[in-house]
């Protein structure tokens, strides 16, 4: 980890958040890559690999549900935590701060819709 890195550095394979844990923050990848894996009945399914500038765990900012997936470092990755309280306090003062979050969540929803449609048998 460089002296100037912000956040916390995780070793390859190290778990950042566990599926089923309660959370009160979201994470922004500063360096490296992390993978989002969901434990399903048939075994673990990799949902996404995300890199610098991307965020995960944002559902914890809006819901009181447990983490929906496990996130772990693919290679050495540095990840910064954004506290729920800090984020919501700023959003309350400046709602436009949530724009990027909404934009990314919209893109993820669009991608899911496309994948879902592709898996459906033709009518």
């Amino acid at each position, binding site marked *: 980890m460089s002296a*100037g*890195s912000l956040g916390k550095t995780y070793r390859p394979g190290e778990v950042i958040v566990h599926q089923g844990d309660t959370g009160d923050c979201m994470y922004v990848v500063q360096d490296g890559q992390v993978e989002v894996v969901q434990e399903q009945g048939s075994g673990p399914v990799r949902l996404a690999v995300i890199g610098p500038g991307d965020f995960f765990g944002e559902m914890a900012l809006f819901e009181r549900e447990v983490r929906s997936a496990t996130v772990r470092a693919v290679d050495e990755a540095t990840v910064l935590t954004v506290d729920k309280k800090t984020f919501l306090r700023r959003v309350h003062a400046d709602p436009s701060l949530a724009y990027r979050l909404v934009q990314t969540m919209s893109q993820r929803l669009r991608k899911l819709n496309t994948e879902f449609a592709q898996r459906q048998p033709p009518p």
Partner: protein
Amino acid sequence: MSTIPVQAGEETPAECTAGRLELEDGSRVGVMGGGPAGSFFSYFLLDLAARVGTRLELDLYESKDYSVPGPAGCNMCGGIISESLVQTLAAEGIRLPPTVITRGIDAYVLHMDVGTVRLETPRLEMRIGAVHRGAGPRGLQAADWQSFDGYLLELAAQKGARVVRGRVEDVEWQAGRPQLRVRNGASQGYDLLAVACGVNSASIKLFEAGKGNGSYRPPATAKTYISELHLGRERIAQYFGHAMHVFLLNIPRLEFAALIPKGDYVTFCLLGQNIDEDLVRAFFGAAPVRACLPPDWSGPKESCHCSPRINVGGASEPYADRLVFLGDCGVSRLYKDGIGAAYRTAKAAAVTAVFQGIGREDFRRHFWPACRSLARDNRLGRLVFAVTRLIQKWRFARRGVLDMVRREQAHAGRVRRMSEVLWNTFTGSAPYGEILLGTMHPAYIGRLIGSTLAGNWPRREPARKD
């Protein structure tokens, strides 16, 4: 047909359209000052305008060259990016790379004559960034870091801002529109002027009473002292690590002092009354200060230093038709997180200009509340710092504070009330109102009384068996 009732303070539809000053496609915006406030404003104004499909032309005037070491490329500041600003910028999608952050800070060490205590970041991660505002101190030969202000200026340029290298020498108002003129340059007219020239630039005199477009009065200021101490990377890692060191010492005229580790340098910041060489010498002569510096260190004599002024009062009416004042020359936070305040006022001004309008009334309704909330919190901040000064003065109080923090740090899982209050006071991570509220909790008061008694209770040396 249904109608939407108009709330008190809101505009009627007729007011909405009558003579409103707005940015339109092709509007021209001038920004005076390419420090954090000017660059953040330019970045967000262009970003927000692009979201709604408005194309703006923005000229950002900055005379400093951030690639030149020393005063010519420096905006003179301690250079701390607060925990809350680091997180907010991350949420905005603005990444601060390790080339800009010269050292991540994960702890504060509080030094007092009665002892020293270390406070870690709440999540044990690097959440505070130490930066060089310019290229680095005078005499620097080569650096492997980048100026923070230069980085933000680049981000603004990437959004479409045209950076004009020059100092604005004259501001005129023609038909209600600002006209800017730089030395040997033609006059340029704008639809909106954002002033972010700080309080140390001569440019602020262009807006003194009667010269501007409104009733702006510059903020009250106080003098500080900043010096860059060259210790070298290895000794900084050995003596400072990733911790910022703050000092509560009972030295006459000294209010607050900090040592901030960076790449090869440690930045020394001092707040006090009538700062002079004697005060600086008294500080470096104090035992707690000597203890955290290498024993063979020669002293600050040859260091690059400056005595910039900081905003301690807030400007009055930092807006008018087609005019808005941001950052230090507007309203800032008292003593802490000036860059965070620059971000907040710049963003509020950009949101107002794009979505509400650029008239005096638009800024009063939508930009001023962000400034007012800072100004109100600063009033509570004065109270927080008045209490800090008393602790600095009273040895028994310092012992009580130290005892309480040590007990909190020794018990994992215990609510760390004093640690949180000190952390938020020194880092500027939380509003002063929240800090003050934390000190009113019965558990905080009870434990402080207990710790003050325990910390000052005369202790007997254990009797020797022989």
